[in-house]
């Protein structure tokens, strides 16, 4: 089985979010980048398939040369090789188009993405890839097994889970559950050393129409200060929730 894991290079979850150039660009100053957490859960599942079922795992990212450190980290975790599509992403569709092209050319059986990235939170790339490729698709995937060409998956639904039977080729939008937090791997020294010599190829983008454009950013308005209520005056809290906030 050939697996393609799509990696998004995103600010660490504790990053301060600021904007520059008249609020038109994200301020990368002092920001640490990581593998998008939803993608890392998927990557770890792919490594499980590699170790247990002999799958070959390729990681891919759409981004400039500065994103290669994130791909090397994925190689250190255990991916066999990496591809960087040399383009600064314009929007979700653009990314999906690039990834679909890589998936098609490489003849991958299983494509694992995170269900959304933690920067733009678009949540559209896996679905758009599946649409462009005409492959089967499971989103918000929390369990995944493959036997031959048959796949069994679970997805999160509002208030529960749904078990899905489908077949390869398959696109998955993964999240926590596809592996658990404790299964995530910190690259060891050997992994980091071998990652340096694993193949990382750079390909040029295709197409290039931007269907959408993020034109400006804005930070939420500063919040008014918290109203403190005495633990001995819970009637006051009920009064505020009922008459002021009108939520009970």
């Amino acid at each position, binding site marked *: 089985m050939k697996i393609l894991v799509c990696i998004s290079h995103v*600010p660490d*979850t504790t990053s301060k*979010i600021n904007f520059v150039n008249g609020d038109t660009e994200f301020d990368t100053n002092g920001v640490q980048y990581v593998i998008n957490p939803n993608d890392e859960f998927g990557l770890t599942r792919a490594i499980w398939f590699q170790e247990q079922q002999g799958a070959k795992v390729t990681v891919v990212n759409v981004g400039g040369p500065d994103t290669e450190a994130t791909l090397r980290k994925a190689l250190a975790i255990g991916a066999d090789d990496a591809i960087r599509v040399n383009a600064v992403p314009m*929007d*979700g569709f653009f990314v*999906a188009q690039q990834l679909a092209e890589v998936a098609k050319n490489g003849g991958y059986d299983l494509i694992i993405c995170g269900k959304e990235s*933690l*920067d*733009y*939170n678009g949540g*559209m790339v896996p*679905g*758009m890839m*599946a*649409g462009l490729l*005409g492959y089967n*698709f499971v*989103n*918000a995937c929390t369990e995944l097994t493959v036997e031959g060409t048959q796949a069994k998956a679970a*997805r*999160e*639904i*509002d*208030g*529960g*889970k*749904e*078990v*899905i*039977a*489908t*077949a390869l080729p398959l696109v998955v939008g993964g*999240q*926590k*559950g596809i592996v*658990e*937090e404790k299964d995530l791997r910190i690259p060891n020294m050997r992994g980091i050393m071998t990652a340096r010599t694993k193949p990382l190829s750079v390909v040029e983008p295709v197409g290039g129409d*931007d*269907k*959408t*454009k*993020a*034109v*400006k*950013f804005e930070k*939420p308005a500063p*919040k008014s200060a*918290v*109203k*403190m*209520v005495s*633990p001995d005056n*819970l*009637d006051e809290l*009920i009064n505020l*929730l*009922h008459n002021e*906030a009108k*939520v*009970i």
Partner: protein
Amino acid sequence: MSVVLYAESSDGKFKKVALEVASYAKAVADALGTQVTAVTINASDASELGKYGVNKVLQVQNDALQAFNAKAYADVIQQAARQEGAQVVVFSSSTDSLYVAPLVAVALEAGMASNVVAAPVSTAPFQVKRSAFSQKAFNYTTINTAVKVLSISKNSFGIHENATSVTAEAFAPQLNEGDFATKVAAVEKASGQVSIADADIVVSGGRGLKGPENWHILEDLATTLGAATACSKPVSDIGWRPHSEHVGQTGKPVASNLYIALGISGAIQHIAGINASKVKVVINTDPEAPFFKVADYGIVGDALEIVPRLTQKLKEFKAQNS
């Protein structure tokens, strides 16, 4: 020309998010000077949608669509959108809608914006405000394609009544075998519980509750308020509560009217996941806990001692006000 929305239903009854999406579609249609068409799949009474400004309902009744199926549902919606000459197709942010919407966008060659939090800023160019960076910022996005696909952040636009006379028509989409290559084998759903996604009120507990044996205190409060129960990441990681209750950046997102945090300090990743909630209350022993910076109302004290008293007072309040 029209604005088309997918009106989600469960057991034939429209979900609350469907009414919010209908209200939103009406606002977009007014801005564009056009009409609203809703697509329903195996829902019963179309007239309810008229209350929220829907002019026309395309009703699909099809046994093959009893179980949700993203590809097939996407096929239904894109065919309806084509028939209606949709300029804009509107979805909610439910797990099902987020599954379907990108497939519809590709089929219609549409640009898509998700997490939309307000009526369009302008229609030419078509620009919307959406949340990004896990609720830490907003971005204004223009969509340049002829057809636009939007998914609306839950509880952001609200439900607005706008009574209109509504006509219903049967719609019979052409479905193919490929639409059904992904099959639902089983559904596991806790019955009789309010789900975090549907809840108006969520009561959530952290390590400050000191152990799973104390959770009945939280559950009593939730039952009194008709709320869903949730927990912080550490609580699910140590196994006090199931992962399905974990809310936060890597857990479930919460966009309720009221979020009550008991013994949760408010790590930045937790806040990112719950910040879309309208009103936040925190009860924590540590007055320096970061949650107090984002909360609307706060009490410094031990939740284990305060919450049973609060529940008792709420029961009395409910009895008086019902």
